[in-house]
């Protein structure tokens, strides 16, 4: 990281972190127990949880959680994209401009205004098969758990946990398929058309 970037981040951090501290000190979080009726006629338990969490977090803390979640999401996307970039372009590319012939590509990639400038064939190796298989398996497991919860007690914390892991497993399945079984294509297109 360059010196100027670091200084700017420190400058912002000097005011941001105290603001977060004051927001947390403002309180407003509630652990007020929410009582749900029980009995034969009651089939749902939306407040059921395996980790004790506040029943309400304050609007002050909600801002911090929102931004941390967004930074976490951007970090996750960064990691996924770097993986696809680094592993997907590990081999030697085919460069049509240097006279190398391309395998079949869709017609819309080579038009009057657009051309393929690099083509990295997919490695389609055994490692990719295992990874896709692993995340597909996890997706099925979490989908089953999510469906079971949705049709059962419908506990919100369990739904969130299973739903989150299901989405991440599916995301990694697509990432692994994209990285290991799809060619990485780089195109250049004219701006003025």
């Amino acid at each position, binding site marked *: 990281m360059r010196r100027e970037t670091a200084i700017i981040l420190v400058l912002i951090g000097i005011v941001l972190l105290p603001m977060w501290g004051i927001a947390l000190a403002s309180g407003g979080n509630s652990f007020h127990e*929410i009582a749900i009726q029980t009995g034969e006629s009651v089939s749902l338990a939306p407040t059921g949880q395996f*980790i004790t969490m506040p029943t309400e977090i304050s609007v002050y803390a909600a801002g911090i959680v929102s931004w941390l979640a967004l930074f*976490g999401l951007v970090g996750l996307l960064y990691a996924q994209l770097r993986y696809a970039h680094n592993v997907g372009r590990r081999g030697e590319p085919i460069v049509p401009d240097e006279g190398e012939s391309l395998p079949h590509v869709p017609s819309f990639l080579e038009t009057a205004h657009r051309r393929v400038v690099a083509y990295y064939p997919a490695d389609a190796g055994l490692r990719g098969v295992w990874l896709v298989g692993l995340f597909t398996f996890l997706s099925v497991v979490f989908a089953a758990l999510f469906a079971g919860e949705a049709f059962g007690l419908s506990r*919100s914390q369990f739904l*969130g946990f299973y739903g989150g892991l299901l989405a991440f497993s599916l995301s990694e399945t697509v990432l692994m398929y994209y990285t290991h079984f799809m060619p990485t294509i780089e195109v*250049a297109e004219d701006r003025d058309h």
Partner: protein
Amino acid sequence: MSTITESDESEETAKYEESRVYGWLDDRLDLNDEFLGKAFPEDRYASFLLGEVTLFTFIILVLTGTFLGMLYRPGAAATTYEGILAEYAGTEVPLAFASVLRITYDVPMGMFIRMVHHWGAYLFVAAMGLHMLRVFFSGAYRNPRELNWVVGSTLLFLGIGEGFMGYALPFDEYGSTATGIGFTVAGSIPVIGETLTKIIFGGLWPDNAAVILPRMFFYHVFLLPLIIGGLIAVHMLLLIRQKHTEQQGSRDDDAGVSDDDESVVTGVPLVPNQVAVTIIVFLSVFGVLALLAGFFPVQRLPVWGPNDPFSTPSGVAPDWYFMWVFGILKVIPGFIPKGEFVAGVVAPGIIATVLVLWPFIDYERDAVHFTADPIKRPFQTSVGVGAIVFIIMLSVAAMNATVGSLINVETSTASTYLLYLTIIVPIVWGLITYYVLKRGVERRSDSGATPTEDDSDTAAAPSDD
């Protein structure tokens, strides 16, 4: 009029022989398949995906909002709640309150979907904000993309307005008290304030809640989403027409396209590569929202109860993205006439206008298609840093009571300190930033270390391929 020859037809058939579905649709709709190859430039930090994050959050909001909208009942008339929430079972509460209790506690997955909607709204605003900061600091708003900045910044304000409407709908004590702050601000507009409030909402809050709630519901689920959706479409169309900006130095070395060639844009094509990335982004966004919904359920309704017109609960604040406006209201000096109007309407209005019109303030005569390096733009970057710090300081000012108790002074004294700090700190921080960046520019210029226009972290970092 063109005529289709046999050779044309056979060419078309060969072109789509691998996709009968596409061929079938193309026969009927004459699809322009060139769009499918649109180039999506990459950047090292995935910051170019923030727009997609925002878009997908909006889509999730629409989907979850549709579910909620079918079950919500806007109204303030008393009704008996007959669900499983013990505290209110069999008691009379306002219709809107009862319907949100029912959605949350008595409908399978209701609480989960409602919480995804709740956190989706927060993530939507935060992602828009971060997306705009990326565009601002990288100068991606410059000619020819000024119009798209105007559309984007308008979307930001519509987004937080949409959040305001949603805050009131459950008609709980907390939400309705916070909504009252908004009504007070709107009503403070000289001469037309009260009339305007009546025209838009049908009366004063919360006395006329029976009339206002259905209107807010209409604005929240139909009018504003329609305008936001339309503006997002315009935003996308402009992006497609003008094409993405590109980060100089991020081009694939093996592709053999010159690093400073602005006549082309390089990147991965929409089909097949970017579609895969898009699916990954959508699933990741949903994954984060699902975890937030599961682990941070905001069960405000049973904690605070339904709206009580005879009480004014303490400790109520608007949503976090309104905190900066709340801060202005808290520190506005008493000697300023019509303080609520100045703090709640004029000051935010000036800030919003400057933001929307920024591309015309920092006007670029010639078109640029590469993003700028923030550390080579001392003025713009220092304005950006000052603006961020200003918003943060105003948000601190909104918590003046907490600040007072932390430093052991009266709230009014704390407010005075915060007023001075809100003015001084952003200016000082901006000046420090300007000085540091200016020195950096001069140092690089002296040492001749400027081989490219952009030697940002992304471009300068060694390839780890």
